C-alpha cells in the first residue's frame, strides 16, 4: 500500500542521520539528568506531589526525554511541507492522486518510529541505570504505553499540519510554528507534569490537546493511569486526534480552493 511505503521511506531516510541522532541523544541525556535532580529535590520535600512518588516523577522525566524528539520537537517532521507551501510547489502536490494529509501523516509516523528507536530507548535505559525508575514489569502496560505514544504522535502531527497549512495565508509561518512548539513544551508536561500545576491551571491544561503528547503516555507508563483512567486517557487522545485531523481536512479544502482560484 502506498502510505506504508511512504512511512517506510521516511523511516529509512531518518535512519541515515546518524551524527544528528547521536548529538540529539547527548542533549536528551544531559537534560534528563538535570531535570531528574531538580525533581528529586522537589519530591524530597513533597513526596506525594501531584500524586506521584519520587520514582514515578523520575520516570516522568526520562519518558519526557524519550518522547521529546518523537512527539514534541518532531525534528524534521513537516518542515518540508512548510517549505513546499512557501515556495508554491504545493500546487503540484494538491493535484496528485494521493491524499495530502494521509501522505504527510504516513511520513511523520515513519519518522516517529525511527526516532522512538533511535532517541527513545537510550534515554530510558540511561535513566533506569542511574536512578530508581518505576517502570512496569507487565508487558501489557508497555503495550498500552506504545499505543498512547502513537496517539500522541498523531495529535502532534495534526497540530503541526495545521500550523504548516497556515502558510497558505501567512507569508511566513515560522513564527507561528515557534509559538505553537512553545505551547506544546509547556502544556504537554515537558517542563513540569501538568498535575503539579496549581489548581485550575492543572485542570485546564489536562483538557488541552497538548496533554495528549506527553502527560497521558507518561501517566500510562508510570502506572498513574490504570483501569478506567487508562481507558479515559486513550479516549481523550483519540478524540483530540480525530477532531484535529478533521479540522486539518477542512483547512486543507479551503487551501485547495484558494490555490485553484488563484492558480497556484
Amino acid at each position, binding site marked *: 500500500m502506498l502510505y506504508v511505503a511512504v512511512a517506510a521511506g521516511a523511516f529509512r531516510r531518518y535512519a541515515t542521520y546518524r551524527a544528528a541522532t547521536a548529538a540529539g541523544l547527548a542533549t536528551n541525556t*544531559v537534560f534528563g539528568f538535570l531535570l531528574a*535532580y531538580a525533581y528529586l*529535590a522537589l519530591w524530597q520535600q*513533597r513526596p506525594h*506531589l501531584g500524586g506521584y512518588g519520587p520514582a514515578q516523577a523520575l520516570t516522568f522525566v526520562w519518558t519526557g526525554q524519550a518522547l521529546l524528539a518523537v512527539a514534541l520537537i518532531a525534528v524534521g517532521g513537516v518542515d518540508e511541507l512548510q517549505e513546499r507551501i512557501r515556495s508554491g510547489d504545493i500546487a503540484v502536490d494538491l493535484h496528485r492522486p494521493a491524499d495530502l494529509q494521509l501522505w504527510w501523516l504516513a511520513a511523520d509516523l515513519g519518522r516517529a518510529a525511527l526516532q522512538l528507536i533511535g532517541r527513545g530507548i537510550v534515554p530510558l535505559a540511561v535513566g533506569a541505570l542511574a536512578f530508581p525508575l518505576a517502570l512496569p514489569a507487565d508487558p501489557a502496560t508497555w503495550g498500552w504505553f506504545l499505543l498512547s505514544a502513537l496517539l500522541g504522535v498523531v495529535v502532534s502531527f495534526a497540530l503541526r499540519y495545521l500550523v504548516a497549512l497556515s502558510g497558505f495565508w*501567512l507569508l511566513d509561518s515560522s*513564527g507561528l510554528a515557534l509559538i505553537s512548539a512553545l505551547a506544546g513544551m509547556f502544556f504537554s508536561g515537558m517542563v513540569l507534569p501538568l498535575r503539579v500545576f496549581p489548581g485550575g491551571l492543572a485542570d485546564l491544561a489536562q483538557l488541552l490537546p497538548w496533554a495528549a503528547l506527553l502527560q497521558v503516555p507518561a501517566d500510562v507508563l508510570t502506572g498513574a493511569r490504570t483501569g478506567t483512567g487508562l481507558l479515559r486517557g486513550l479516549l481523550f487522545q483519540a478524540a483530540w486526534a480525530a477532531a484535529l485531523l478533521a479540522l486539518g481536512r477542512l483547512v486543507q479544502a479551503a487551501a485547495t480552493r484558494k490555490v485553484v482560484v488563484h492558480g497556484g
Partner: protein
Amino acid sequence: MADRPGGRLPVLRDALTGYALLAWMQVRSALAYRTSFVLMALGNFAASGLDFAAIALMFAHVRALGGYALPEVAFLYGTGSLALGLADLLVGSLERLGARIRDGTLDTLLLRPAPVWAQLAADRFALRRLGRVVQGLLVLVWSTGHLDVDWTPGRVLMVPLMTVCGAVIFGAVFTAGAAFQFWAQDAAELQNALTYGGNALLRYPPTVFARDLVRSVTFIVPLAFVNWLPALWLLGRPYPLGLPGWTAFLSPAVAALMGAGAALAWRHGLRAYRSTGS
C-alpha cells in the same frame, strides 16, 4: 594596503567591520518579513519565560529548593540566562557552520577580506535573540530587589563581571562546538547539550545535584564559573566542593583560558577544512 604582514590589529579591525556590516544586513533582511519578525521575537521572549514559569510553579509547592529560596534561584537563573543570551545573540549563529559546509557556501565567506569566524558569527544575527537577554535581565533585576544581601561595591561590581565572563565562556563553547562541525557536519545539536543544557543546569543551586556532576562542571567543563562560584560568594553561601574562597574570583581567568582553547580548536578545524576541502 599598508598592512604589515602578520599584523594583529588590522585583522581585528577587519573582524569588527565584517561582523558589524553583516549583522546590520541581517537585521535589515529580517525586517523584510515584519509579522514573522515580531512573532519570533515574542516567541523567544516567551520561550525563556516558560523556563522561569516552571521554576515559579515548583516554588508554589515548596519554600526552598536545595536550601535556596526563590529570589536566590532567580538570581542564579537571571545571571545564567543573561550570559547565555548575550553569547547566543552575538555568536550563536556559528552553529550554522555545518549547514554552510554542506551546501558549499562557506567558500563564499572565505573569499571576503574578513575573518571567517566573525562572518559566521554574524551570519544569522537576529535581534529576536534579544528576547532571552531581556527576559534574563528582568528576572535578575527582580531577584536583586528581593535578595537579603548587603550590596557592597564589590558585590555590585561582581554582577557585570560575571555576566561578561559567563558570556565569554558560553561563546567559547559555541565556538568549540562549531569547530567540531568541521569534522562532523550534522552534529550541530551536540553543543546544545553544553549551552542550553548548561544554562538549564546553572539555574538550579549546585546543592540539588550529585557531587560528581558538580565536580565535572567545575573541573572538566568549567561552566560553574559562569555563575555558581561567583554568585554563591555574592550570596554568602558555601560552594559544595569546599573550594577556597578566592576561587570565586577565577571566572575571568577561566573565561580567558576557554576562549584561548576555543580559538585553537577553531584554527585547527579551519585548517583541516582548507586542507581537505568539502
